């Protein structure tokens, strides 16, 4: 008893000949179907080349277009010819011209001998699997499809719409439950001849001829009626990409294919000489491994599909430029933005860096230049600190910065001095953690002690700018992790919010910090604000400061720094 091979061939005849020879030499009868579209000359040359092998036959030719009945008709005729001509064939294996046997044919024969009544055909009901491409699952069995999906997509889609609107539903023949699955099956003589000689065959054909992609459902559904034992999987390793096209194997897949232990793989690139050389001349016995195990290949192709459909978050490049809302993560990693902290605390940046282990930059959107950590002029990825380059495309600057430093948490300062447009992008980015002490810009002004009229003008401008920033942060579209305190609120209990922010950054073990940052000396700040008010410039963003404050722990530098005890 042996296995008969049906090959559906339409191109790469040199390779098809090689493979047919391989099967035939191993004692398997082969029936080849050549697409009717192939020219007579090519066909006769091909059949001539295989004429020395008596167990290779050619079946009646049909025209085979993707997803049409021709493919089923071709398989039917070839299967009939196989069953008639080779009496001792027990399993019939349907393959294509670009399939390649990976294991010695004897192993396939042994494998099937051990399972004489098993049909290997992937066959699932449409309700249970999300395989379909094009959005038609159950409807492929209940609508009419006179137009080609490939050539006449417009008419195809319109007709589907019309039929949906009219609630067209074809009657499915009695007893048939539509199933679908991979078209590359291996069926027993019993099941196959039951399908082909069934009194219902004409009826079934009439129905399936009008089904969409019948080659994925005809045998898959009918095998369910006749088979004694279905293994719902294909012995052929065949992976599909997101458009329903098969992935192609190349020379560099050699080791992967070896380790997969599958019997047959498709589709092989016709110029993959190493694969044909390796598997047809020296197929390695899988020794103690019996069951096919395509897990690793599955993972590689699943990853490829994922890359094509979802891509790498936060990457903008020549072949990935998502529309707004489709970024799947505007930036590559989480990052923290601090507004007002560096103004309120002495040496905030080094402290933050020690407390979190993150890379802490200054104002990277400062008007003069990007203040990268450590005063660097160029950062990871050769990102320049030049302000003009940065502002030419500030969003690209931000996404580049986060992309280039993947793996190291980024923190940077922001403020009302800085180029404001980028705040809108950050506010909508769920990766951003934005913490604002509103009004803290007044501290450097207060400490600078310059000409009051100039200070007043600057304070007014900064307050206006910050007000606009806060508006953006409070927009309902903002998706960042945003916290806003007024300055008065913040210095009431500065350590609690700080601890919260640091914990959220979560770089190090969660613990109380050993040292706290020191708040700038604010003696007289209340008076400073009052003076601004007296000049008609009402500073409101910092909250209510009393003119003469009650003594605060951090109010004077003479006191010991405020420490949180563990």
């Amino acid at each position, binding site marked *: 008893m042996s296995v008969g091979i049906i090959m559906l061939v339409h191109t790469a005849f040199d390779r098809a000949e090689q493979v047919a020879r391989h099967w035939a030499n191993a004692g398997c009868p082969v029936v080849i179907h050549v697409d009717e579209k192939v020219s007579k000359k090519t066909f006769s040359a091909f059949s001539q080349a295989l004429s020395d092998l008596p167990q290779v036959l050619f079946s009646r030719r049909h025209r085979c277009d993707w997803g049409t009945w021709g493919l089923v008709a071709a398989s039917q005729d070839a299967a009939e010819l196989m069953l008639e001509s080779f009496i001792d064939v027990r399993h019939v294996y349907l393959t294509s011209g670009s399939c390649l046997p990976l294991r010695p044919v004897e192993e396939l024969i042994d494998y099937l001998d051990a399972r004489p009544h098993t049909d290997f055909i992937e066959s699932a009901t449409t309700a249970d699997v999300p395989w379909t491409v094009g959005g038609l699952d159950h409807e492929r069995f209940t609508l009419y499809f006179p137009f080609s999906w490939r050539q006449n997509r417009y008419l195809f889609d319109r007709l589907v719409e019309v039929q949906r609107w009219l609630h067209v539903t074809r009657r499915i023949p009695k007893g048939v439950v539509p199933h679908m699955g991979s078209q590359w099956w291996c069926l027993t003589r019993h099941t196959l001849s039951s399908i082909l000689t069934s009194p219902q065959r004409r009826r079934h054909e009439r129905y399936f001829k009008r089904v969409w992609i019948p080659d994925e459902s005809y045998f898959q559904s009918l095998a369910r009626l006749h088979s004694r034992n279905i293994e719902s999987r294909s012995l052929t390793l065949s992976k599909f*990409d*997101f*458009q329903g*096209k098969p*992935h*192609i194997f*190349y*020379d*560099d897949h050699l080791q992967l294919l070896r380790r997969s232990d599958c019997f047959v793989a498709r589709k092989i*690139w016709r*110029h993959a000489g190493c694969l044909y050389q390796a598997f047809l001349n020296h197929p390695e016995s899988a020794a103690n491994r019996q069951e096919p195990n395509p897990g690793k290949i599955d993972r*590689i*192709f699943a*990853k*490829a*599909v994922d*890359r*094509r*459909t*979802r*891509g*790498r978050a936060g*990457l*903008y*490049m*020549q*072949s*990935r*430029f*998502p*529309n707004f809302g*489709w*970024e*799947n993560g505007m930036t590559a990693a989480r990052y923290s933005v601090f507004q007002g902290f560096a103004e309120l605390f002495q040496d905030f940046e080094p402290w933050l860096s020690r407390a979190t282990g993150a890379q802490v930059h200054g104002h990277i959107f400062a008007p003069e230049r990007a203040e990268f950590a450590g005063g*660097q002029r*160029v*950062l*990871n*990825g*050769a*990102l*320049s600190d*030049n302000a*003009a*380059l940065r502002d*030419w*495309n500030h969003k*690209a*600057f931000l996404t*580049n910065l986060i*992309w*280039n430093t993947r793996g190291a948490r980024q923190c940077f300062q922001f403020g009302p001095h800085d180029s404001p447009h980028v705040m809108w992008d950050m506010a909508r980015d769920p990766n951003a953690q934005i913490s604002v002490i509103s009004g803290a810009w007044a501290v450097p002004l207060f400490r600078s002690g310059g000409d009051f009229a100039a200070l007043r003008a600057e304070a007014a401008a900064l307050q206006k700018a910050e007000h606009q920033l806060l508006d953006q942060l409070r927009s309902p579209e903002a998706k960042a992790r945003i916290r806003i305190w007024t300055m008065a609120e913040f210095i009431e209990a500065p350590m609690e919010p700080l601890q919260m922010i640091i914990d959220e950054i979560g770089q190090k073990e969660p613990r109380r910090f050993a040292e706290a940052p020191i708040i700038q000396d604010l003696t007289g700040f209340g008076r400073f604000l009052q003076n601004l008010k007296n000049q008609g410039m009402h500073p409101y963003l910092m909250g209510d400061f009393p003119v003469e404050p009650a003594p605060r722990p951090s109010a004077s530098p003479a006191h010991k720094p405020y420490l949180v005890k563990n």
Partner: protein
Amino acid sequence: MGAWQSYRLRLQRKRWLIRAFRKRRELRCVADRTDRIRPSDLIVFCTARNEGVRLPWFLKFYRNMGVNHFVMVDNDSTDGSLDYLARQDDVSVWHTRGSYKRSRFGMDWINWLLRKYGDGHWVLVVDPDELFLYPFCDTRPLRALTDWLDASSIKSFSAMLLDMYPKGRLDAQPYKAGQDPLEIASWFDAGNYSVKRNARFGNLWIQGGPRARVFFPDQPERAPALNKVPLVKWDRRYTYVSSTHMLLPRGLNLVYDEWGGEKASGLLLHTKFLDTFNAKAEEELARKQHYAGSTEYIAYADGIRDNPDLWCKWSEKYINWRQLEILGLMSKGNWA
């Protein structure tokens, strides 16, 4: 896009085709081996001027990749490259004295030759200092890529220009004919590219890299464009609009995914910055035959005098295509 704009782009496409037809008279055929082109051949199209020292490696590189034929235009070279090209079995070469600038930087000539010899072929349009890189290029020939593109119904393939530069002064390591230029210019900028969308032609406009960083820090809008679509399944109705940055019909410019995914893409390693660069920049400055009044070369001349080292602490050293794909400069897309 409305019907009106669509119609205008159609007119523009026709205009470039007619212009290419007129400019064909500037070309004089020196070696015509185009009868050897078979229907399935992969063809490189290229314009060169005084690039003799680069040609041996250029031809070797693309032959190894599986390119079957080269269609070259020699723009009045004085270094013997015309003779060299005419001697090669797989090269058809045309000579012209025409103005590079007035042929739209060689594109008119190339558009004409593409129309005549490229129809139905996968064509690769590159400069002699551009080395094309695609996913799996170390294990799969170019035909594997084009077969896959055919199977996926993709007609054009993007390859951003990636400027390569040496460490140290440009003239520190002399380049010899036949040498791999990447041995010298082996560094690049990994992550300082700005991407914008060009609404009119639907292409992306990419700028950045060392040229923006060093030569155009104060006028970033003038930094050279790096987006290119050099590999196309050509049809005689197609035309390049501006260098190989964009094409018409504009569907060919949609080489990027807009819905979050990544399409497959490659890179053109641009090995312009060798010791030959200074002489070239001076000559081009004198000839004033380059884009936008040769502002690029004016900027170079200034930049080169100030500081001839493009290298910085965060430059990356080139290893292979996988490194570039991990860095996010190119992508495998769903090709696995």
